[in-house]
């Protein structure tokens, strides 16, 4: 158990969703264990956010890789030091030092720089769109809660 509010099973499931978001497949057993261990040993990961909205971003992100990306895009802009971002960055650190995922994360796709630069522009626009979508989702959920 890492934390009373975060049982191991929850952390493992979170790790699976976030790894699928970051690299497109499930984590191996070593990464899964390291992610849980990180939560046991580094209190910064379990420390809840002060703002309820930031905690909701984490709940949204746990619901699947696409939502994780939208919540992450939103958190990067509006809650850059939130628990969600801390957890995602920690997972990225774990994945980048493990031989099985290191190359996937940091190997250039090749191709032309012009196409790359064009894709960067599109990515920025898409990230903005995702951030907005996440905000809308959170707002609707809040309305739903009130209704």
């Amino acid at each position, binding site marked *: 158990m890492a934390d009373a509010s975060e049982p191991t099973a929850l952390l493992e499931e979170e790790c699976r969703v976030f790894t699928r*978001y*970051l690299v497109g497949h499930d984590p191996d057993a*070593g990464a899964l264990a*390291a992610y849980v*261990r*990180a939560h046991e*040993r*580094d209190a*910064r*990961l379990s420390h809840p956010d002060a703002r309820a909205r930031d905690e909701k971003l984490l709940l949204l992100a746990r619901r699947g890789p696409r939502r994780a*990306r*939208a919540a*992450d*895009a939103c958190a*990067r*802009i509006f809650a*850059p*030091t*939130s628990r969600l*971002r*801390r957890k*995602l*960055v*920690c997972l*990225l*650190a*774990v994945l*980048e*030092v*493990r*031989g*099985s995922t*290191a190359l996937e*994360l*940091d*190997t*250039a*796709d*090749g*191709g*032309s*720089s012009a196409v*790359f*630069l064009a*894709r*960067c522009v599109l*990515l*920025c626009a*898409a*990230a903005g769109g*995702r*951030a907005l979508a996440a905000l809308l989702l959170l707002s609707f959920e809040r309305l739903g809660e009130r209704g």
Partner: protein
Amino acid sequence: MRLHVVGAGASAAHFALTALERGFEVVVLDVGRTRPPAVSPTASFGELKSELDDPVEYFLGEHFEGVVLPSDETEYYGFPPNKAHVFAAEERFRLASEGFEPLASFAKGGLAEAWTGGVYPFTEAELVDWPIGWDELRPHYEDVARRIGISGRADDLAEHLPDHGGLMEPLRLDDHSSSLFSTYEKKRERFHALGCRMGRARSATLSADHAGRPACSELGRCLWTCPTNSLYTPWLTFEELEGREGFTYLPGRYVDHFETDGGRVVRLVASRDDGEQETHDVERLVLAAGTLSSARVFLESVRRERGEAPRLSGLMDNRQVLQPFVNLRRLCRPWEADAFQYHQLVMTLAADDPRASVHGLVTTLKTALIHPIVQSLPLDLKSALFVFKNAHAALGLLNVNLHDTRRAENTLELGPSGELRVRYVPPADEPTRIGAALRRYRRALRMLGCFVPPGMTHMRPMGASVHYAGTVPMTDEARPLTTTRDGRSRDFENLWFADGSTFPFLPAKNLTFTLMANASRIAATVS
């Protein structure tokens, strides 16, 4: 003839070696935290990730302290877990600071256990405020170069980096540095018209086997402590000294103060790790504990002796400004994994007053932990990863160093509970100097085909460069709180300062090569 030396960093190492060679008996007292043993010494950075049983623990630490999590702090050092001993806090050494972010080390080898190995001699012009000139320092630069092994060459930077002898061939240039350098060579005249010159870095890293150490085999692990010792650290000198007759290394000793008979030091008082105090009778005492710690030992001793400690003024450090760049020709290319990690090129800016020239270190990004960089991009991590991996081979950093002078407002003094109080105020013209240097550097980077992303220039806080100097300057003018040209204190006749404390001026250059050469020079004159 016996000498007690406090400290086991770069300054102490070369003081001790020269003194021993002169026939002195040398006793070194040091806190002496030690490095962990090297793991898989022949594996490259990439291979470690697959070969180690637990790469997560090696790279990120047992408590994940190597993970750089998003936070509001603007300055992060990101040292790997196996360097924890270098910066571990020492509770007996307390600091309070204003306008300065001091770093201190209590490791065997000192701060240079974590250095990047840039070794840059001062020029004659940069020594004008010193009571000694190039001719007196040059032979010691050469001796140190032969001891530690320095790769580099006399090139376009010859005026800025004078030839002291003893250089090895430069290291192989990594692909990115090589492409920058060849662009510079093609446009050399235009760069010179801008007052900008580029040349090969001087690095305390072996390009050929030397003194029982192998040439750099490009493992890309420099930041994680070179496992083959191709990259020099003073720890190596102490390992060598410990086997020699006449040399005694006493680790686990924190020196608090010395006692005097009024004019001479007679005793050194240290506390051991088990809390016990011990004293050492002293014939000659050499403070080489780093500028800040030497000052504390000195001030505490004077306070005990005279009831009141003076204030030391003139603290200097190089302001550093980090300018990231993207070499547009290298986008979408594979990055080079097996290469020397640190800077390989130097770009200087000339000034009317040669003491005010600017020194820029060009580091191209190769092996690194990527999560600190990826998280800083203003995108979700997935998008940021896409951008980063396709830009990795194109990324670089220019580390701009500015000179500093001794000024009365920059002080060290003891606080009421024995803490060292550091106060620093930057010079009034600093913003103008930084602005002018950055404008010229940005032009130079554009001439190299690089894009300079707006808003990403980072001014490091004072103290971050860890080039501390100037608090007990050497001068030919006899007055208290100074030393003679040979580092001998004017306050106590058998006390010497052999670290940065005595520097009268700090050019825009990494100072450690001069720390080592000057310490060796002082040891050559101690009597």
